[in-house]
């Protein structure tokens, strides 16, 4: 370990940081005798970067040399950046020492493609195999699968990694081929299928024998870049919904396009990354996974893009005033989840508490239910005041986006002058 390693670490971290996935969740595993470490079910963030993202895993590349020339990627062949390669022992030692100091929750390993996908994949597998078998490391490992890697290697990697991922990057095959001539959808979806089949097979085997090895117990994830190509939110979210049908697919990440390569005519000239759009996509993603929405309800042909001004749930509610107001004291859990401003926690609290008596809006506020949006869509013990039906969807929208400056709210305000 010396200054040389510090340089490599900086270079390779710079190259890896545009991958947004950093969760260490999905698998809870206590310590095993003779091994170091554990994983906690929800994952632990050990630090946060100044852009507010969590640092849970040591997110690093084995090498940032790459034979591909993908327009959106900082590590593409034609870029003039510093290149470095870690040796297996350096990387393993770094991981172990960081882990023992409680800096990290585990390792997130990826790599540029050198020589061939299989050659690269083999080296990645060697690192995780070393960690598990020689250093007896029992913490979290997230391993990137190289597009186009062979089935045998993916299967072997799955025995050591907790989570694996293959990035789709561009949600449309035509656009992908234009930006990354060496890639196509098949090279991405094939490893994804291997992982799915492996994980289903291992689940089946473990039903018969608890000694059967676990295969990628925390499932797989993927990432799409938003704003580099002309795809609409509808295309992106439909693809996500399709991916979530696969039981091993745990997360789809959205990464607002950061203009890392400036002189490429195929890419739009953006000054700031589309952060708001990225945020709205994540909100829609949550609606798909935890709020029992379907894609068609969030985006359709009439509304192919998410509303940037208001969140997708509010936008859905404003388009469907006939479903409201919802009575908190009688409505089903599923219906409560549809109320803008009510989340899973609030809905659970309401369902648990209303068995002891009817709830008033005062109690809801006390419980921590945020009433700013919810008040227009709820009725409680009191008489309904100004719900969406008394006002109008347009009016509610105006109130929530600009603050209410309409006479109805100001009529009780007395104007005093100073003279």
């Amino acid at each position, binding site marked *: *370990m*010396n200054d040389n*390693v*510090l340089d490599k*670490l*900086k*270079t390779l*971290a*710079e190259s890896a*940081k*545009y991958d947004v996935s950093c969760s260490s969740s999905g698998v809870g595993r*206590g*310590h095993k005798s003779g091994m*170091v*470490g*554990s994983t*906690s079910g929800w994952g*632990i*963030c*050990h*630090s*946060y*970067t*100044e*852009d*507010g*993202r*969590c*640092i849970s895993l*040591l*997110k*690093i590349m084995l090498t940032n040399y790459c034979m591909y020339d993908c327009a959106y990627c900082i590590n593409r062949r034609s870029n003039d950046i510093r290149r470095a390669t870690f040796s297996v022992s350096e990387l393993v030692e*770094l991981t172990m*020492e*960081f882990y*023992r*100091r*409680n*800096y990290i929750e585990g390792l997130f390993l990826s790599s540029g493609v050198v020589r061939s996908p299989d050659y690269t994949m083999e080296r990645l597998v060697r690192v995780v195999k070393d960690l598990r078998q020689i250093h007896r490391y029992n*913490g979290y490992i997230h391993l990137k699968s190289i597009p186009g890697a062979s089935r045998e290697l993916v299967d072997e990697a799955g025995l050591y990694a907790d989570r694996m991922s293959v990035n789709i990057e561009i949600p449309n095959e035509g656009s992908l081929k234009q930006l990354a001539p060496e890639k196509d959808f098949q090279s991405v979806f094939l490893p994804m299928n291997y992982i799915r089949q492996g994980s289903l097979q291992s689940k089946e085997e473990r039903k018969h024998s608890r000694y059967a090895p676990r295969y990628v117990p925390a499932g797989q994830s993927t990432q799409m870049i938003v704003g580099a190509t002309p795809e609409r939110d509808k295309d992106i979210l439909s693809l996500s919904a399709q991916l979530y049908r696969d039981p091993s697919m745990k997360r789809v990440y959205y990464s*607002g396009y*950061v*203009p890392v390569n400036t002189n490429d005519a195929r890419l739009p000239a953006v000054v*700031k*990354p589309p*952060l708001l759009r990225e945020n709205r996509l994540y909100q829609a993603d949550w609606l798909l996974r935890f709020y029992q929405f379907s894609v068609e309800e969030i985006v359709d042909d009439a509304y192919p893009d998410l509303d940037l001004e208001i969140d997708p749930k509010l936008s859905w509610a404003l388009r469907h005033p006939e479903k409201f107001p919802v009575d908190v004291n009688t409505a089903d859990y599923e219906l409560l989840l549809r109320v803008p401003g009510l989340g899973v926690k609030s809905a659970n*609290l309401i369902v*648990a*508490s209303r*068995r*002891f*008596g009817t*709830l008033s809006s005062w*109690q809801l506020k*006390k*419980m*921590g239910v945020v009433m700013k949006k919810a008040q227009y869509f709820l009725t409680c013990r009191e008489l309904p005041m100004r719900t969406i039906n008394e006002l109008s969807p347009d009016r509610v929208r105006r109130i929530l986006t600009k603050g209410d400056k309409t006479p109805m709210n100001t009529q009780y305000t007395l104007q005093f002058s100073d003279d």
Partner: protein
Amino acid sequence: MVAYRYDKSFEGLLTAVFEAYVSKKFPDVLLGENEVAPLFCDEIVDILTDEARSSRVWKGLELRISHSALYTLPDCWLSELPEVDMLIFRYIRKAFDAKESIELNFGDPDVLELSKIWRHVQKERERVLQFVRFQKTADGIYFSCLEPAYNVLPITLSHFIDRFHDQRWIIYDAKRDYGFYYDLKEVTEIHLDDKQWNSNGIIAESVADTDELLFQQLWKGYFDSMTIKERVNPKLHRRNLPVRFWKYLPEKRRR
């Protein structure tokens, strides 16, 4: 107005509940041993902490609320908030008097307040799991020092024992001046008089492992290069990583 005076321990509080039910005189105020009684206090009852009585109250509670709700009470106690003892007292009383379990009745202000305190304590526990940073000493002990807002170290131990069970470590609470030492077999509570670390929790160079500083530099280097400059968001950064922890984090420390 009735006041109870007890030794400010959790067992003492449970004994107080027992005494209240025996004498049918419920306190309006709970006092510590050296606290001054409020004005217009008619009666001050001194409570002697009693193991048998407190465990009877605990067993009684086990019958009335669920296991998970029961164990939130000692967790809330660790918050050390000034009013938390009275809150727990009222909660236990409601639990005994109600026909069915009250634990999910968040319409009740005491139940709601305790559940909020419990959430805060759990959040602080999580922060300790996140922000403990070990420094390796020359004799191979991993040392860490921080100041949690609540007294949460006791409920973090199981996690650290599980994760770092093959290394010796010390986690020290600088605010309350006590800590825990794990010697590969068991955890003992310790109090260190000879403090070989400075106000930022950095151990003296003479006792640090030779590579310790290097790994701190490597970690800081990694941390700095992870930031995407185009997306910097200081407000979010401070919300996730509260400033009060910064001085103990090698990546946020200025050199």
